[in-house]
């Protein structure tokens, strides 16, 4: 049987609180704080651990956001975070439960030189999609002998442990709804529907500027075909640890890749979603060029694509990969559309991209990441994640002007937000 079927069981959480027993009942998630702390303390590279609950709509703020993880567990067998751990035996199939409305936020405390601020309520809170979730915020410092790499990896690991632990509360329960992702080459899709391929460009350059694939580092891979279910079940993990939020892309949105979800929604109805190609944004121009040619051929010669949609991770030179992929596809007769974030200046006067191609005639904008947003003041005792800003002189509860780039989720490079820039 060739059916690749992934079920995501959705459990909608409306409130979270600390209690004796961890359980999910009537949409309320109770969590034993001590057990969470004990789990995190298993990470040798983390010390001084603290956790807090932060609620949507409050006059509060989370700063130094490093990553946001969606709590998940696989029912039956397998690892819900296989892309991180490498245990991919059941990645993409079977049933995975997800707690919706909850985020596990990891805050970093080693002075990555950016701000990364989620305004949970009041002025400016509408820019981050994460302001409508309830967050379990984990603050931890590196241990004495830990390198930056050790610390980052420990944070990611802690996040997945805690996420898994929270999601365990759903194991015996019936989900509120189930999403079914089922796609195989044997699907009987109307042959007149346009065949669409998603070329998903990833960023794998160094230990701390990485996209993990199946738990490994795809540093020198050629473009490869990946099943969309694998992406939706955690095979791809962004680990651009020292990049600003707008280029980092949080785990929560990566595992819910909006492009893939939208293509799946229309699969068999108005399009034939034939596949996903992953391709690395190499540092050298010659490899960028080569991989673009290979990806385009793969889309055409192996998947017979009529159309390709393209996204990038990171900023600046990845524009070159986008344009090269666009050109090579168009040259093979594949029509393309690009979804990309813009890097004009704060006034919006400078060109939005580093490179353009005349063939890139269909581009969707996820907003100018350098435009500033005003955050209103928050309660003094309701700022989590750190004690002072990195680049701003104001104190952490003050009103601030912050660029879109430093607001997690605001200009989602894989299309998860409603922000766009228009020409005026």
């Amino acid at each position, binding site marked *: 049987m060739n059916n690749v079927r992934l079920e995501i069981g959705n459990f909608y959480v409306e409130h979270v609180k600390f209690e004796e027993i961890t359980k999910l009942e009537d949409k309320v998630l109770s969590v034993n704080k001590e057990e969470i702390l004990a789990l995190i303390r298993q990470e040798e590279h983390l010390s001084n651990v603290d956790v807090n609950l932060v609620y949507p709509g409050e006059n509060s703020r989370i700063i130094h956001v490093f990553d946001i993880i969606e709590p998940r567990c696989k029912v039956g067998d397998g690892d819900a975070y296989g892309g991180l751990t490498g245990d991919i035996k059941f990645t993409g199939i079977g049933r995975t439960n997800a707690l919706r409305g909850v985020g596990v936020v990891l805050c970093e405390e080693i002075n990555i030189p950016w701000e990364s601020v989620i305004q949970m309520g009041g002025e400016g809170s509408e820019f981050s999609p994460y302001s409508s979730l309830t967050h379990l915020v984990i603050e931890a410092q590196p241990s004495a002998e830990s390198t930056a790499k050790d610390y980052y990896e420990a944070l990611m690991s802690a996040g997945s442990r805690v996420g898994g632990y929270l999601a365990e509360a759903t194991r015996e329960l019936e989900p509120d709804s189930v999403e079914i992702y089922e796609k195989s080459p044997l699907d009987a899709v109307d042959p007149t529907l346009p065949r669409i391929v998603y070329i998903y460009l990833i960023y794998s350059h160094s230990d701390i500027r990485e996209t993990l694939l199946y738990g490994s580092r795809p540093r020198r891979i050629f473009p490869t075909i990946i099943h969309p279910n694998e992406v939706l079940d955690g095979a791809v993990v962004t680990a651009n640890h020292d990049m600003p939020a707008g280029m980092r892309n949080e785990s929560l949105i990566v595992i819910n890749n909006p492009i893939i979800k939208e293509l799946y929604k229309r699969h068999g109805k108005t399009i034939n979603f034939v596949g996903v190609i992953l391709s690395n944004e190499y540092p050298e121009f010659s490899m960028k060029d080569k991989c673009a040619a290979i990806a385009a051929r793969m889309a055409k010669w192996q998947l017979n694509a009529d159309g390709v949609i393209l996204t990038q991770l990171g900023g600046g030179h990845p524009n*070159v990969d986008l344009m090269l992929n666009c050109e090579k596809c168009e040259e093979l007769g594949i029509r393309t559309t690009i979804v990309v974030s813009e890097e004009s200046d704060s006034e919006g006067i400078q060109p939005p991209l580093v*490179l*353009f*191609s*005349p063939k890139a005639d269909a581009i969707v904008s996820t907003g100018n990441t350098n435009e500033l947003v005003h955050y209103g003041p928050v309660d003094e005792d309701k700022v989590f994640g750190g004690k002072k800003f990195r680049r701003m002189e104001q104190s952490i509860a003050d009103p601030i002007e912050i660029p879109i780039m430093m607001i997690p989720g605001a200009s989602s490079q894989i299309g998860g937000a409603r922000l766009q820039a228009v020409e005026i």
Partner: protein
Amino acid sequence: MQISSLIKIPEMMGIKRIIGGIGVPYPLGNPHVSKAEEERTRQKYVERALRLLEQPLIDPA
């Protein structure tokens, strides 16, 4: 025609007759080799450039 070290840019502008320059601060030079070799190389590039001027374009857009 144009000789440019960053050829994607004239390409972006729709220029058809392009030769990639050697380096940004020395499109037709090379400070890392002997004077004689540099001059020989420059001559080769310029000759290519001149011949390109005679070339009909493959797809006159």
